[in-house]
């Protein structure tokens, strides 16, 4: 056990997985020699060999499609795509093949693959480097889509994803890579990939989010507490297939909820959260569930990014509005 960042926890999980089974192969652009653009795979090539931590040509569809072949042959590829905005060239492979091979072949051929995708804004990067289109992947039957927001959970979730017999889109919140530290075991057991977590107990309102926006969500709960509002905080974690049992239980108790995400609002995953809550506990709701989200615009570049990303303030204000209604 040591105190580790989210980035370190992911590196550790990859390292352990590579050590555990020869079937694991890590591949992607720049993952080898230079350890990836975020240095998540740093040191793994030196330790496990260039044939297991592979620098591929610059072609995302090629990476995912080739990895599918590896997986069908029984390997367990762990793909890194550099940014969510560069996952789109691989979209056809993901939706048309990765997600469907098991169904197409009635379990004869399967795709035990992890696709790691750093996502989200707030790092002042160039265009296309701040995407948060998780809902697109969450809509595709046959994919599991998960996102950690804490180092220890990240290690356990990645282990579970790698050991999962089905494809997992593993989203990594870029701006959290090095911003939080917590105790992470040297070898985490696999975490559940089909549950949400109540992070903070509360009785007045439920704040639900995932990934990078958990930071502002937690801060909002703190601020609300300071003004006497008891907010329960739920980390959705597993975006698809979505399991809202935990969340619905929370909302049944608090009667009010705000869902927070940085993706554009329209047709974003917050809509699914609202629709599901409505199906599970409409009659327990004392006010409509509110959304605090990115706008239906392109996320601006560095200098104007803060106008786009939901702030702690917006969450607090929205929660107060929901409480007042």
């Amino acid at each position, binding site marked *: 056990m040591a105190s580790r960042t989210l980035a370190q926890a992911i590196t550790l999980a990859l390292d352990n997985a590579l050590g555990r089974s020869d079937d694991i192969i890590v591949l992607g652009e720049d993952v080898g020699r230079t350890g990836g653009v975020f240095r998540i795979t740093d040191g793994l090539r030196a330790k496990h060999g260039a044939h297991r931590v592979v620098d591929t040509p610059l072609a995302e*569809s090629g990476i995912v499609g*080739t990895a599918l072949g590896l997986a069908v*042959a029984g390997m367990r590829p762990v793909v890194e795509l550099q940014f969510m905005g560069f996952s789109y060239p691989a979209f056809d492979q993901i939706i048309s093949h990765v997600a469907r091979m098991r169904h197409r*072949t009635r379990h004869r051929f399967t795709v035990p693959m992890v696709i790691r995708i750093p996502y989200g804004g707030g790092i002042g990067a160039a265009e296309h480097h701040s995407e948060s289109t998780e809902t697109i992947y969450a809509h595709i039957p046959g994919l599991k889509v998960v996102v950690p927001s804490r180092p220890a959970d990240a290690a356990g979730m990645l282990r579970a994803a790698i050991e999962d017999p089905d494809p997992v889109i593993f989203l990594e919140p870029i701006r959290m890579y090095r911003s939080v530290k917590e105790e992470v075991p040297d070898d985490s057991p696999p975490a559940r990939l089909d549950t949400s977590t109540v992070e903070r107990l509360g009785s007045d309102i439920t704040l639900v989010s995932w990934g990078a926006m958990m930071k502002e969500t937690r801060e909002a709960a703190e601020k609300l507490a300071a003004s006497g509002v008891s907010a329960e905080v739920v980390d959705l974690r597993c975006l698809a297939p979505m*399991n809202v049992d935990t969340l619905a239980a929370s909302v049944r108790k608090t009667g009010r909820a705000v869902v927070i995400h940085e993706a554009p609002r329209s047709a974003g995953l917050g809509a699914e959260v609202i629709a599901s809550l409505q199906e599970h506990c409409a009659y327990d709701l004392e006010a409509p569930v509110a959304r605090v989200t990115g706008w239906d615009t392109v996320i601006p570049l560095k200098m104007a990014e803060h106008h786009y990303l939901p702030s702690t303030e917006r969450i607090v204000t929205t929660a107060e509005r929901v409480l007042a209604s």
Partner: protein
Amino acid sequence: MAERPLQFLNPDGQLIEKSPVDLDRAVALYRDMVLARVYDKKGVALQKQGRLATYAPFEGQEAAQVASAATLEQGDWMVPSYREPAAMWMHGYPMELLIATRRGTELGGSPPDDVRVLPVSIPVGSHMLHAVGLAWAERLRGTDRVAITYFGDGATSEGDFHEAMNFAGVLNAGCIFFCQNNGWAISLPREEQTAAETIAHKAVGYGMPGVLVDGNDALAVYEATRTAVERARSGAGPTLIEAQTYRMGPHSTADDPGRYRSPDATEEWRTRDPVERLRRYLADQGSWTPEWQAELEQDGSALVEQAVVTAETLPTFRPEEMFDGMFAELPPGIAAQRAEAGAI
């Protein structure tokens, strides 16, 4: 880059170079090509009768499929597109499952455990990458198994073709890219598909050999593929084969070639028919008789009929399977939908 396609039999079935295969092999290829033609005729007929949902005829492409697949060993991988039933069953894919897929049921997609043939792939150009991964995995595992992938002239325009070729080149993967250039991608003629001199020329861009072969000459197809398979198996890397052939029929049973090509070209290609060509050769060798032909066709028909019966009496795909097929373990949310569907 060879300017003329590899050829052993000229269109009249005369050997123009020493045969690369012995007579037994030629006879075996012929048998399978007759079966392929019988199957194809049956497919077209079944679709007309409404007993298949879709069908993609491959008349004229029998040599390309049969003779290439005949070079593989058990354990090698095959990654087909959608117009290679003959290649698929040559490598063990049960014929009844191919028919089942065309009938419109999921049951066709699941070959037996020892059959290393991926099911039909529909998104044009997307599946060649899978062959690269399979070949790579075999190398990582230390075996000498190879992967062959089939695709059309149209598929070479997709970005994924490029990425597959490039990955195979860089990884030196034991992969055979078998292009059946049948002259058309639905209504687009090969000349408008690419300005490359031949599709085989595209291999240059990936540092691999590009081999041009007369796709209607079973002996040439066999030899070219055998060489590529051997190369792959020995660890020397991938090969692109362009088998020049022709789609004699429509693109699919919904297509009307009269809208985009003249029957003349098709008739001209009929003089290069792969089955007839090999027949003449065998006849010249004294290895073909009309009686044998009748027998082959009868046996072929019986086999295909049996496959049709089996396909048509497969259990039906139950609605629950929709849900059960998605993941190894049914997730709670989908289980709820399964229950909801069951209640309807």
